């Protein structure tokens, strides 16, 4: 009896253990006879549904291929991907941030898709988006001096920010049009910064800005600031243009007093303040259009105000890359080719109100349904890609720190930029 008791307990114990570790094989048997591509994506709920539609369309056209889509949280993708490579459990295709390809290329983690005809395909894609995937041989082959270009990924989504403004607040302040340049911007922002309830405290601000470098690119780009030397070895942020640009950001808060201080740790974020009708103007992108519409605010979208270098914006978005251990690289490329095809882009952009990555799809976008896309498409024409550095995250980190100290006036603009240049040169460009 005692032995039976022990045996029963032991069996239950090990059965649970085996079930816990052994249920991974069931999935594989389902797709026998097909070439299975595992794809990790980080889309939002809305985007995910449309993406599944596109995948389904692709599978109907390519019956021998099954695309196994798996969702990963956007913020955790990089860490998960790195871990999966170390443990040889990486997917075949991954959706990565536009800042990621340099490191993935140099560590030979993703494959060169040039032999499949990607350069030809890239000619039809938005250059600011596809450029983050194109590398010269000398970048990834040690000792090479060749400038021969190779392509390592396909942009699946491209974004950039524009100026969002609250029409209702503009009407109340008697302002007809959004600002076209930074001088007009300051005048308008002053009119929109008001104490609405007369308690002596400002409770509506003309503008709110984020602290990070990426969100500050529209300033730098319109002021004509060049970040890196042509050989990529030196940071050029101690230029006069850069100083003027950062000084302008500081002045918006301290001198003109039109900025809400949304860049400070723990403040009400730009999006939240815009929805709550506390901030009259913010920078934002296509991904927020639906959210703002759903919140019921009456808003418009305009080009980023012009500076010395005209209007411009940042470039965000994501790329699809094929991992080195992909079992069916050719089929992976076929899927990526389909993803940026006119048909797929038409569906993607019309349903989600996003900017197409395929230039040929521009004419198929129904701007009457999503009039705001027009502004973004116009804005993207002058967008400038972020500096191509291997450790972009650290560049962002260093700049965020130094921009913050300038904005809080703990450092002068000159000192903050000099320190940023020194740190970027030492910690990132020549590490």
């Amino acid at each position, binding site marked *: 009896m005692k032995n039976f008791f022990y045996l029963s307990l*032991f069996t239950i114990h090990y059965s649970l253990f085996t079930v816990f570790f052994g249920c991974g094989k069931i999935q594989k048997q389902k797709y026998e006879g097909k070439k299975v591509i595992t794809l990790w994506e980080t889309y939002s709920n809305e985007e995910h549904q449309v993406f599944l539609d596109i995948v389904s369309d692709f599978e109907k056209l390519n019956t021998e291929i099954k695309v196994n889509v798996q969702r990963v949280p956007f913020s955790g993708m990089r860490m998960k991907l790195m871990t999966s490579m170390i443990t040889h459990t990486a997917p075949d295709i991954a959706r990565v941030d536009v800042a990621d390809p340099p*490191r993935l290329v140099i*560590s030979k983690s993703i494959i060169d898709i040039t032999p499949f005809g990607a350069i030809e395909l890239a000619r039809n894609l938005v250059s600011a988006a596809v450029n983050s995937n194109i590398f010269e041989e000398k970048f990834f082959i040690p000792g090479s001096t060749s400038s021969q270009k190779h392509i390592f990924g396909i942009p699946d989504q491209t974004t950039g920010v524009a100026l969002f403004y609250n029409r209702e607040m503009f009407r109340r302040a008697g302002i007809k049009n959004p600002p076209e340049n930074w001088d007009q911007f300051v005048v308008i922002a002053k009119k929109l910064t008001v104490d609405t309830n007369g308690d002596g405290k400002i409770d509506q601000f003309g503008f709110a800005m984020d602290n990070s470098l990426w969100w500050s690119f529209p300033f730098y780009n319109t002021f004509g600031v060049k970040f890196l030397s042509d050989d990529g070895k030196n940071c050029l942020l101690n230029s006069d243009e850069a100083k003027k640009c950062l000084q302008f950001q500081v002045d918006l808060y301290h001198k003109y007093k039109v900025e809400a*201080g949304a860049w*400070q*740790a*723990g403040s009400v974020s730009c999006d939240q303040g815009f929805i709550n009708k506390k901030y009259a103007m913010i920078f934002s992108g296509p991904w927020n259009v639906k959210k703002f519409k759903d919140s019921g605010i009456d808003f418009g979208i305009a080009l980023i105000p012009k500076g010395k270098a005209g209007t411009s914006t940042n470039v965000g978005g994501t790329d699809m890359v094929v991992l080195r251990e992909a079992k069916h690289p050719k089929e992976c490329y076929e899927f990526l080719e389909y993803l940026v095809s006119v048909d797929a882009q038409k569906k993607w952009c019309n349903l989600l109100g996003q900017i197409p990555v395929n230039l040929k799809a521009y004419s198929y976008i129904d701007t009457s349904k999503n009039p705001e896309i027009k502004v973004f498409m116009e804005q993207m024409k002058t967008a400038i890609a972020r500096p191509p550095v*291997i450790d972009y*995250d650290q560049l962002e980190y260093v700049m965020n720190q130094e921009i913050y100290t300038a904005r809080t006036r703990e450092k002068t603009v000159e000192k903050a930029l000099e320190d940023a240049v020194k740190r970027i040169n030492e910690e990132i460009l020549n590490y």
Partner: protein
Amino acid sequence: MLKSKTRETIVSYFFLAPFLAIFASFLLYPIFYSFYLSFRTVSPTTDMFSVFTDMKFVGFSNYLRLLKDFDFWWSLVSTGYYAVLYIPLSIAASLMLAILLNNQLKGHSLFRSAYFLPNVLDMFVVGIIWLFIYAPHYGILDRILTQLGITYFAEKGVLANGKTAMLGVVAALVLKNAGFGMILFLSAIQNISVSIYEAADIDGANEWQKFKSITLPLVVPIILFLIITGTIGALNAFAEIYAMTGGGPQMVVAGKTVGATNVSGYYLFRQFERMNYGDAAAISYFLLAITLVISYINVKLLHRK
């Protein structure tokens, strides 16, 4: 036939085996592997599919670089500041709650549960709630203080000010965790014999004297336990910083830009996030050494007691 003791031992090991396998895979192996990593470095060109073979051996250079890294030393200073604020405040809050709730008043169970409840909430949830409380212009705290004529937090709130950010994080954490200490103190206080208090009453002792001479000395083991766990907690602090400040706000110390709440746990995370696995492993072993020294001192103090 096996002896019954031997058979029992074998059976015990069979039952322990799944746990030991998990323990060895997910705890023991990473501990040793981290030590191995701390002498190696991952460069941007390191093949991520073959990290084991592609990482370069660099001897003690990760440790030596740490010694020269201002940000690392600053993170230790921040951690010390965090610990100095957190440990006494959390002990005081827990003890105060335990004393207040050590009675049979109607609803005392409800209050005990209510004060313990934040302890089971996720730190990120608590962090977001406090972000709204501390926010400048629109935060509840600023609104209340402005009504009272205090405008110090109007522009920067609590978390954007280098002088108050750490205090803000610690205050949120103390209020979240005080319930746990309260339970420990309550059980210790309830184990004190009533006759001791009765003897003190006969001697004419007042409430303060009874607290100082009876309650406090008899809950010292709990205090020491909370000091040890608080110290280890401070060296591992991460979630509260990640949720509330991201290591900021930035401030200038000795001419260098540093994060006011950039504690060592967060600094370690940054290195790991950048895939500087060698540096991250070296930091973790450095912190382990500090933890061992502090724990040793604490154990000695406990032993003396």
